């Protein structure tokens, strides 16, 4: 072990996962360099609306438990997640909430001053904590505030408006290790290397690959794609969540939170095809509440993939969309307007602001949009102490859980490989970590997984630096030429792009980066979202090869050496095409339907062949630059069962409107 060395950890990304990691690592006494393309307070986490799940005292007394939360998450994810990490996350959830509470998050309160709870998809219990309708924003701000505190104490050094370009590694094979990064100042365009004993990627999802999504403009997946091209494996690339309820727009699709359904929102279309009346003028008996009829148990609160597919089916296949377009009603007008303002004020405002109608009085018009990336950098973990002799079966509310919720049951506390990629020293936290959500994510579990990674797996990072390989061979002793070579490599890529801008006259669409990006989004949305087929994905891969070829001739529209956003965007497009190829190829080879991945030509789940993680390995010699390996999943804890959410049959002609939601509304 090298004495008196300087230790540093690099965190890339300043959303919930990155900030939680930075705070946790800084607290352990290791200085942190925090990189973000935006001031961290503007990270995409602000967009999360609905809430954060955790077992709580009220639900517990109704028969809920951390174990039930774990079981719901595994079942919701259609058994594609390794089970240990999910158990640990569910067990920590109440502690995460307590911590956020102490940080001052203004969680909604009951009359007694306790934290209020709401119902969310995938559960029959109220287990979702919330702060108005901007929970993600409030959680991010709490962590931003703690980061500001540590920054003013000199423990965290922020590099805002810096873009991650490449991980720096030393050694090959077993000895390979990540020892820093190359990044670029988005204003001065300076490119430089930073040493780090460990690097935490907390760079979120890749919604921009699909063009218009609910994601922020920075969610290109570029950073993850760069790690992938540098040799990090990418798990379950085909698992992309389409949120059932978004407001279609010219620049993006804006999320309409699941809490709108949780608070009693009802999804319907007119029973009469192409009905020209306004939604609020159509009488109750002429409305088809298709989710409530098909899923009497969960009703409008079925998980996201099911809701998306049913809405897609009603609009695209049956042509029953509102005004004949791809849209359905999400209706809250039966609720008291003041109640809606209090509980859902933020999202009511968003709808009114961007769609021009007041959702308290007119039903909202919504359609599914790409929302969340379940797949991500593949990561490892060390199993915890819960090791049943055989997997537990269907866990019913009120049943005694087969294990308690003590820390370390699912994942060993402080293990250095928790959330570590296949490259030692390179970690993936939050949305960019593939670990927790399997084939689809339950609502209000994302914020949890981000903060859990930062807090729990952050300990492993500190241990890696203090006692692990980084203590034996610290980054500060790595030869400077390693970093110089990495910088030179990135500068060469930039020169090639900037040189392409010289002599741009009439720029043809063929090599216009914005047009390539637009075509990429349209193609990926059409081929690789709600409904997929082998034939369509084959065509998609061909299109991606074409886009890749055109990209190799791309012409930048701005050659400036100062604050060149076109450069940043164009560079990301290249990386997005590479990642899109993994997404499409994973989707093609996974010949089954599971969670958000629905193959029309293989409509059933196939546990024999595909109860496995698809692992994309970058391979420039392959036509699609990608090889897919299949890895077994840790299913020691829970036995897979059919994921049906109690479905029954329904059609627009059956005039049997259910009474259940009305009762729920009255209570």
């Amino acid at each position: 072990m090298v004495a008196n060395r300087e230790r540093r950890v690099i965190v890339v990304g300043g959303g919930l996962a990155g900030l939680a990691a930075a705070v946790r690592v800084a607290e352990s006494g290791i200085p942190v360099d925090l990189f973000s393309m935006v001031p961290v307070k503007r990270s995409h986490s602000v967009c999360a609306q609905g809430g954060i799940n955790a077992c709580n005292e009220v639900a517990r007394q109704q028969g809920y438990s951390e174990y039930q939360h774990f079981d719901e998450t595994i079942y919701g994810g259609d058994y594609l997640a390794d089970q240990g990490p999910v158990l640990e996350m569910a067990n920590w959830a109440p502690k995460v909430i307590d911590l956020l509470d102490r940080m001052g998050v203004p969680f909604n309160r009951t009359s007694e001053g306790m934290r209020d709870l709401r119902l969310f998809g995938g559960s029959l219990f109220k287990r979702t904590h919330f702060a108005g309708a901007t929970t993600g924003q409030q959680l991010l701000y709490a962590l931003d505030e703690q980061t500001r505190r540590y920054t003013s104490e000199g423990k965290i050094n922020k590099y805002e408006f810096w873009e991650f370009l490449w991980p720096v590694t030393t050694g090959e094979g077993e000895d390979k290790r990540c020892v820093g990064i190359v990044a670029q100042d988005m204003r001065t365009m300076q490119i430089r290397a930073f040493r780090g004993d460990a690097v935490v990627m907390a760079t979120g999802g890749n919604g921009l690959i699909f063009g218009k999504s609910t994601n922020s403009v920075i969610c290109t997946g570029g950073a993850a794609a760069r790690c992938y091209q540098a040799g990090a494996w990418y798990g379950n690339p085909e698992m992309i969540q389409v949120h059932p309820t978004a407001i279609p727009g010219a620049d993006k699709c804006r999320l309409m939170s699941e809490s709108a359904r949780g608070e009693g929102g009802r999804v319907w279309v007119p029973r009469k095809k192409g009905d020209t009346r306004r939604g609020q003028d159509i009488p109750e008996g002429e409305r088809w509440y298709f989710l409530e009829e098909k899923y009497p148990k969960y009703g409008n609160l079925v998980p996201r993939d099911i809701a998306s597919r049913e809405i897609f089916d009603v609009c695209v296949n049956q042509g029953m969309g509102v005004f004949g377009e791809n849209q359905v009603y999400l209706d809250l007008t039966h609720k008291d307007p003041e109640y809606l303002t209090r509980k859902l004020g933020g999202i009511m405002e968003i709808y009114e602001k961007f769609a021009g109608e007041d959702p308290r009085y007119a039903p909202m018009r919504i359609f599914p949009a790409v929302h969340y990336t379940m797949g991500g950098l593949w990561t490892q973990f060390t199993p915890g102490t819960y090791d049943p002799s055989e997997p537990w079966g269907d866990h019913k509310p009120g049943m005694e859980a087969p294990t308690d919720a003590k820390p370390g049951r699912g994942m060993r506390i402080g293990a250095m490989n928790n959330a570590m990629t296949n490259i030692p020293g390179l970690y993936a936290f939050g949305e960019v970590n593939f670990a927790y959500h399997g084939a689809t994510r339950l609502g209000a579990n994302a914020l949890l997984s981000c903060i859990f990674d930062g807090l729990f797996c952050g300990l492993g990072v500190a241990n890696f630096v203090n006692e692990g390989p980084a203590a034996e061979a610290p980054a500060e002793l790595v030869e400077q030429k390693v970093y110089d070579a990495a910088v030179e490599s990135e500068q060469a890529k930039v020169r090639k792009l900037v040189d392409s801008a010289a002599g741009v006259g009439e720029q043809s669409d063929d090599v216009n980066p914005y047009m390539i990006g637009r075509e990429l989004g349209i193609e990926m949305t059409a081929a690789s979202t709600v409904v997929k087929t082998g034939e369509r994905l084959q065509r998609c891969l061909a299109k991606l090869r074409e886009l890749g070829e055109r990209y190799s001739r791309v012409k930048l529209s701005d050659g400036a050496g100062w604050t060149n956003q076109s450069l940043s965007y164009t560079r990301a497009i290249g990386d997005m095409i590479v990642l899109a190829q993994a997404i499409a190829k994973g989707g093609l080879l996974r010949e089954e339907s599971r969670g958000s991945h629905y193959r029309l030509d293989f409509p059933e789940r196939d546990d024999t062949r595909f109860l496995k993680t698809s692992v994309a390995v970058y391979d420039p010699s392959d036509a699609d630059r990608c090889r897919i390996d299949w890895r077994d999943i840790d299913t020691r804890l829970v036995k897979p069962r059919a994921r049906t959410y109690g479905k029954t049959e329904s059609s627009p002609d059956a005039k049997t409107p259910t009474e259940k939601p009305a009762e729920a509304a009255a209570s």
Partner: protein
Amino acid sequence: MVAPSKPVTSKPDEVKPEMGRTVRFTIHRCDGPGKAARWESFDVPIEPGSNIISVLQYIAAHPVTIEGKRTTPVVWDSGCLEEVCGACTMVINGRVRQSCSCLIDHIAPRNGDEVTLEPMSKFPVVRDLWVDRERLFYNLRRVKAWVPIDGTYDLGAGPTENPDKQETRYKLSTCMSCGCCLEACPQFNLEEDPEHWDSAFIGAHAISQARLFNEHETGKQLKRDRLDELMGPGGVSDCGNAQNCVKVCPKEIPLTESIGAMGRAVTIHSLARFFAGKK
């Protein structure tokens, strides 16, 4: 059960937007600090639902001015496009606001309408419409805008809070650091030298955040530090009571109420210090 019919309150359109129209966007451009500024105009076809963001995206893909001159894409700052991150703030037709929530149907409903876009003037321009708002975040450090918790280990729940207080704090906590209140404030001026940031007016946003954390059970442990800062140069007494801040705040945060509350707290604080024999 049929819900009772309710009045529809969606606003009647003053001018019904013309379909298939073209709108002229005149944009204040500057290649970087110290470079000369210029205006460039673009004619942009408007689709239903267009906002300033989709217009700037169109210009990025077709960077040709009305004179037919090829130029570079416009540089601007943006993030969530849902008016919760604060990034895309700029001055549109003379008024500071977020560009994502600025629908073209509302500001330019007729064919040939004109729209001007300028960067905020109270922060240094980085390039075109992108400004450097570092000072805004620095001022949050001045008032120690955080809760001083004892670390991130599990130490149980935070303090309980009555719903009224939660509602007050939640409203204050929706401040997204966009800078609208500072752009509109006659007392808050461009200050490029960070050496002067500690004595220049701190701004409505930071005063309101001081109130937010003084209202929290644990946050109030730093109350005196915050009031010391607001008592000093550039503190709450520099507010000229123009009340522009509250008018332009996109989140309708009661900024003047916060300034009033902090003004009173500073007065009491300074009297207490006086009688305690401190200056």
